[in-house]
């Protein structure tokens, strides 16, 4: 019985539930602005959306391919600064800068992936952490290009003579991009690639024995997740208009990983929920003022101790249990 329950929660949902959940996501994105009455709330929703886009990608790597990355904020930062520097300093069209950022991150992550993904567990954590930290140190130090620790201003996003401006517009931009990210991710998971990735997560050796080119799929998940982060970074830079190296540092990387694990590994919607909750949480915790860090740390520790699988899979498990009873 336990065995059956386990397979039910880990198997990918059939097509119709997938469409249903996509529709639900679209509905939530479409109706949320009705509840968010002021720009402050919209702003938080937009930031949550950016984090969610990164987390959906990162979940492919952590949740499906079973590989850790403690450096994805570095890719977010490269995307953000590519847009900032190319558009603001060199006058490129924003969409070209976004693509240039995404392509360079894609190439960089591809080159790094092969040697790095040979590493296991904590060694992989160390290597990715190192990459992230090196990126953030470069961004902090190359003052002439990046503005140093104080960051740099970024021009607004213009496309076909249209300027994206204000929280209302950006909400829809981020909503649509998030929807596309989720759709891509679900498609990938349901494809043979997704099956191969899950096999890699289950047992890399077993997957290799049955003929899965594990290295190739791990590299793919790494590159896709890095590119998601880069695109989110580019858009983020245009939205806030000010980027700082803090957006690429170790803590941002940790925050992203935490969102994925908190929401639920190997669950695309879990990653979205984790991103939203952990973006809103620090805002909500400001009522605790001096205690907010303590509360945040305690929440992280104890949710992970009591729900090591994350929020969504735990809740799904409870529901499944209730149904059987």
């Amino acid at each position, binding site marked *: 019985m336990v065995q059956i329950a386990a397979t039910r929660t880990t198997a990918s949902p059939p097509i119709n539930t997938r469409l249903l959940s996509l529709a639900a996501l679209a509905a939530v994105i479409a109706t949320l602005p009705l509840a968010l009455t002021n720009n402050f709330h919209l702003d938080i929703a937009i930031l949550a959306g950016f984090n969610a886009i990164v987390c959906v990608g990162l979940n492919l790597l952590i949740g499906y391919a079973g590989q850790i990355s403690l450096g994805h904020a570095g890719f977010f930062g490269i995307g953000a600064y590519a847009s900032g520097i190319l558009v603001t300093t060199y006058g490129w069209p924003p969409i070209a800068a976004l693509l240039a950022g995404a392509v360079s991150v894609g190439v960089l992550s591809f080159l790094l992936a092969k040697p790095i993904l040979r590493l296991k567990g904590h060694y992989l*954590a160390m*290597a990715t952490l190192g990459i992230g930290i090196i990126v953030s140190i470069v961004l902090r*130090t190359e003052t002439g290009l990046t503005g140093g620790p104080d960051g740099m201003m970024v021009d607004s996003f213009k496309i076909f003579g249209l300027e994206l401006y204000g929280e209302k517009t950006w909400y829809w931009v981020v909503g649509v991009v998030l929807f596309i990210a989720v759709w891509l991710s679900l498609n990938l998971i349901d494809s043979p690639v997704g099956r191969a990735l899950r096999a890699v997560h289950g047992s890399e050796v077993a997957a290799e024995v049955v003929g899965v080119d594990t290295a190739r799929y791990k590299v793919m998940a790494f590159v896709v997740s890095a590119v998601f982060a880069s695109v989110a970074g580019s858009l983020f830079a245009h939205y806030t208009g000010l980027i700082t190296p803090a957006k690429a540092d170790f803590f941002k990387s940790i925050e992203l990983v935490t969102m994925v694990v908190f929401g639920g590994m190997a669950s695309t919607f879990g990653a979205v929920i984790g991103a939203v909750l952990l973006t809103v949480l620090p805002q909500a915790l400001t009522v605790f003022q001096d205690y907010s860090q303590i509360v*945040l*740390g*305690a929440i992280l520790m*104890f949710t992970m101790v009591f729900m090591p699988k994350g929020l969504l899979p735990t809740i799904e498990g409870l529901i499944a249990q209730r149904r059987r009873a």
Partner: protein
Amino acid sequence: MFAEFLQYLLSGLTIGAIYALAGLGFSIIYNASHVINFAQGEFIMIGGMAAATLTASGVPLPLAILMGCGGAMLVGVLVAKFTVERARNASVVTLIIITIGASIFLRGVAELVWGKDFKRLEAFSGETPINVLGASMQPQSLWVIGCAAVLIVAIGVFFNRTLAGKAMLATSHNRLAAQLVGINVKRVVLISFALSAALGAIGGSVVAPITFSYTEMGIMLGLKGFTAAVLGGLGNGPGAVAGGLIVGIAEALGAGYISSAYKDAVAFVIILLVLLFMPSGLFGKRGTERV
């Protein structure tokens, strides 16, 4: 020329000694529980802050260091007891987040207790530089290197000569077998956290006169300690010590000869290069995977 080199070497050795202690702390906990404890840097911070604030309020220095050490050990045991022990079967990434949660929590508490500003701890035996073959050395550096050396030797003796130490080594080799011969493996985990916390806290209090004490002092020191432990091969104590010294010296030389702005990047560049060619660190066992 030589004096300059010696100067960098000595300052690298000083900070490397702290990385070595932190790296050793990572290794001890990893051996006992296969957990990478990202709160290791916070033990250093607790030691540094406790020593600085307690001496400022009139407590004699040795007592202040002991109190900081005791406090850190208590915190370490609590972290082990209430989080790590309860999440034994969680995945690597979940355990990493748990210890990071612990480190955020501890920094939050420290900020509340001690405030955010920098605290100064007087150097233990004055600040008159000692001339070493043309290079000048702060007396405090000798304290750091000396204390680290004593602690490292003590840890070596503990693991190789005492029953408790041997029990811990046995647990790291084979947890189940250790349990079968009557070793209390749960207590081994608790002791490993207490030991690592003590190493970190003492390291923090001797280095505080050089770096100042502040609540975020443990972040980079902890990450460099992790680098040291991985460089030496995770779970390899002497490897972690060597890793710490290598990272410290490379960092000081890099800062001196290449670019001081990229000082903090040196450790991470080294570890990436080493891992490219030696996926288990410099002295790590090349593991075969059992399927």
